[in-house]
């Protein structure tokens, strides 16, 4: 970034000079600040904060809303819309809002806006994809109900016993408290997610019921407001909101153009019709660096790719076998030749996107050493045949086959990659305990804490722990870390938990994701954060 800056400055200065010569000076600054830039996205599924769990919706909402906290370069939370977030016991959190924030329709942002939005998010029958973020808040269970005869049965689930979370209490217009069911020192970071945005009074049809068409033109408290409505499959246009009290955006508006195929997005960037592509598709990676020159960029994100060993497959029971397989994989070769540097080798069980990440915490087992791997594999009596199952719709065939070839060559075993049509098919097979072999999995964090990798991926009964790893000692350490009084202590305990993973090797860490993005000559200061969103307050038009 820094290296290109002088060139950009020169280009910008020349352009300003030309402009000044052309129209007799004046107005240069405002021209750039009023510019409307375009960013390519896919069609969002929803534009309701609590239901926007995929990146397209989150990208648009990040422009329309201002979060309570955001994250700095070290993944530590800092306050944005909140004046203070305090807790003495990590159980009761007092959130004081900054005065002066208003919704785009002029309403003042107050404690009620947060409480109502969060209650709606957590209420089970609303089916909000982000509801599980509020799991830790006291009373969450009472907002859910269980279908008495299972999903397949004819009976409907009864209404939950409560409609509001007992853990949310208003103190005054700008202050409210959140009571968690158990102490959690990382709660401040959790609140940085999309689900925790406030909603204005204008959003509600009646108490607890959102207006049907609210998501067609969401009213937020952020630096940009909607310009017109969400035009499905075409675009979402936003323009700067003048009364925004926080850091002002450096552009006048953003046109989020919707594309179904990433390749079409890239074509439009090359054709000159689009300013930013946040993820350049793998098909274009060969030509993109030359096409774009210094406008081709990468930045780390939180994607963590790995393969898991199902615990019901006894042939992988021995930890030596699992470690030997990991040692026989040349991660570097796969990331350079197949992913062309768009991903990097992973040698830890969490992503560098979280505080507390240590490089190579996996140790020797993640270091490529074919000779040692083979000796260890044979000594431990590993299976003669290895299978890797993946979902065929995610573009995984190439690297799975390459990994298989490495295992064949380095361990002298037979290895096959089996593609299931969809991820759901893969999960069904795992649930039925079919011999799927190694299963391909990936994880994107919800909030930048080690716990967000350790809990869902390796905790007993974790939401993405499809392979069934369970170690009470590990669970205990993660839990202790969550309850620790400070983040520093929490990280220490979580790192101890990670060390257990290195010993048990329940999964093989393979690769870390990167944002591979590009932009046109009309914009500068383009950055894509760890949540794969464009840093909307930093982006600028060149002139």
């Amino acid at each position, binding site marked *: 970034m820094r290296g290109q800056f002088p060139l950009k400055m020169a280009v910008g200065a020349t352009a300003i000079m030309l402009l000044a010569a052309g129209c007799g000076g004046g107005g240069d600054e405002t021209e750039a600040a009023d510019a409307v830039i375009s960013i390519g996205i896919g069609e969002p599924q929803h534009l309701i904060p609590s239901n926007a769990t995929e990146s397209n919706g989150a990208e648009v909402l990040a422009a329309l809303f201002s979060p309570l906290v955001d994250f700095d370069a070290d993944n530590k939370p800092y306050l944005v819309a909140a004046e203070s977030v305090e807790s003495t016991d990590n159980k009761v959190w007092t959130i004081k809002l900054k005065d002066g924030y208003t919704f785009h329709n002029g309403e003042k942002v107050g404690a009620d806006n947060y409480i109502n939005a969060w209650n709606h998010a957590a209420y089970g029958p609303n*089916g909000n994809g982000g509801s599980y973020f509020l799991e830790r808040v006291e009373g969450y269970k009472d907002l859910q109900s269980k279908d008495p005869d299972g*999903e397949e049965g004819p009976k409907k689930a009864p209404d939950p016993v409560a409609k509001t979370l007992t853990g949310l209490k208003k103190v005054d217009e700008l202050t409210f408290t959140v009571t968690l069911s158990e102490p959690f020192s990382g709660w401040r970071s959790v609140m940085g997610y999309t689900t925790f945005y406030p909603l204005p009074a204008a959003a509600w049809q009646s108490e607890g019921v959102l207006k049907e068409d609210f998501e067609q033109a969401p009213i937020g408290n952020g630096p940009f407001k909607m310009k017109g409505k969400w035009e499905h499959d075409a675009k979402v246009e936003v323009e700067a909101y003048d009364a925004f009290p926080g850091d002002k955006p450096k552009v006048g508006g953003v046109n989020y153009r919707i*594309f179904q195929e990433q390749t*079409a997005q890239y*074509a439009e960037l090359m*054709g000159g*019709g689009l300013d930013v592509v946040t993820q350049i598709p793998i098909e274009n990676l060969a030509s993109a660096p030359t096409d774009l020159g210094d406008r081709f960029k990468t930045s780390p994100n939180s994607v963590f790719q790995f393969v898991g060993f199902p615990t019901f497959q006894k042939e992988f029971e021995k930890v030596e076998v699992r470690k030997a397989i990991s040692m026989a994989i040349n991660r570097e070769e796969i990331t350079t030749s197949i992913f062309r540097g768009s991903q990097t080798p992973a040698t830890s069980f969490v992503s560098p996107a979280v505080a507390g990440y240590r490089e190579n915490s996996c140790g020797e087992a993640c270091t490529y050493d074919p000779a040692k791997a083979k000796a260890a594999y044979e000594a431990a009596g590993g299976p003669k045949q290895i299978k890797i199952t993946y979902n065929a719709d995610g573009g995984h065939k190439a690297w799975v086959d390459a990994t298989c070839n490495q295992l064949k060559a380095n361990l002298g075993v037979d290895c096959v990659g089996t593609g299931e049509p969809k*991820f759901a098919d893969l999960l069904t097979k795992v649930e039925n305990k079919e011999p799927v072999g190694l299963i391909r999995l990936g994880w994107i964090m919800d909030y930048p804490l080690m716990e967000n990798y350790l809990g869902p991926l390796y905790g007993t009964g974790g939401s993405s722990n499809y392979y069934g790893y369970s170690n009470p000692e590990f669970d205990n350490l993660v839990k202790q870390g969550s309850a620790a009084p400070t983040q520093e202590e929490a990280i220490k305990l979580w790192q101890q938990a990670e060390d257990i993973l290195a010993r048990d090797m329940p999964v093989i860490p393979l690769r870390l994701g990167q944002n591979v993005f590009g932009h046109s000559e009309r914009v500068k200061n383009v950055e894509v954060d760890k949540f794969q969103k464009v840093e909307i307050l930093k982006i600028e038009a060149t002139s």
Partner: protein
Amino acid sequence: MFRYFVRRLLQGVLTFFGATFIVYALMFANQSDPLQALAGERPLPENVRQALTERYHLDDPFILQYGYYMKGLLTGDFGTSLTNRPILEMMEQAWPTTIRLSFIAIIIAVLIAVTAGIVSAIRRGGVFDNTTLVITLLLLSMPIVVLAPLAQLIFGMRLQWVPATAGADSGLFALVLPAFVLSSLVIATQLRVTRASVAENLRSDYVRTARAKGLADRRVIGVHVLRNSLIPVVTLIGTDLGNLMAGAIVTEGVFNIPGVGFMLVRGIRTEDGPLVVGFVSILVIVFLVVNLVVDLLYAVLDPRIRYE
């Protein structure tokens, strides 16, 4: 004529119900877990799964789901997609887009195919005839999955003569390249059929008679030959129109045109039964109507054909 028309209409109704039933059954059989498909690789929270399963009747048996769907369809309610968008609204957006694209494509195809077909039939074995033969061979052998990105790369990204993608409310200019690509699906066959048909008619008795009468070449070809040669071409154009609408899947994806093909791809990816069936139902109607119109056009072009 009227009885024929009514009989065809009744047949059409049966075909419509049969086709929607089969498509719905196929989508149902293909459906493993649409909610997981929607969530991608994220784990789906249990409460969300439960709420959405009830909202979209996903836990009901097939016949009941089909019943719900048909009941809605007959009262003009196409239902909602799994992202809670009314499908009717998606159709109102997608159909005009696709129809516009297919019409431009068909006009381009007919203009090129018929003109070039006649010229090469008149000058059989000449340079023009042989050149078009080679070009049509090339077009026929090049699948659209190759042709569309290639055209986009050359004209949209490198030369930048036309916009690389079209988008939703694009002008006619942006649609020229996609329409050209789309028309290549049908141009080759139309050209060959026109050429063969004109060449055959040029040898027939009535043409010789017309020439013997001393009619001008222009009139002989323009009126006598063309009218008789166009019957097979009109049939082709009719069915091609249906093909173009259904076949725009690749083109609409590459050029980012939110039309019917675009929606179908999305529906299939997310295992969204109602979305796919809704669009296919309309496609079925389009095919039925187009076929009927083509059959009726025969009688206009050839007075010897009568329907009973």
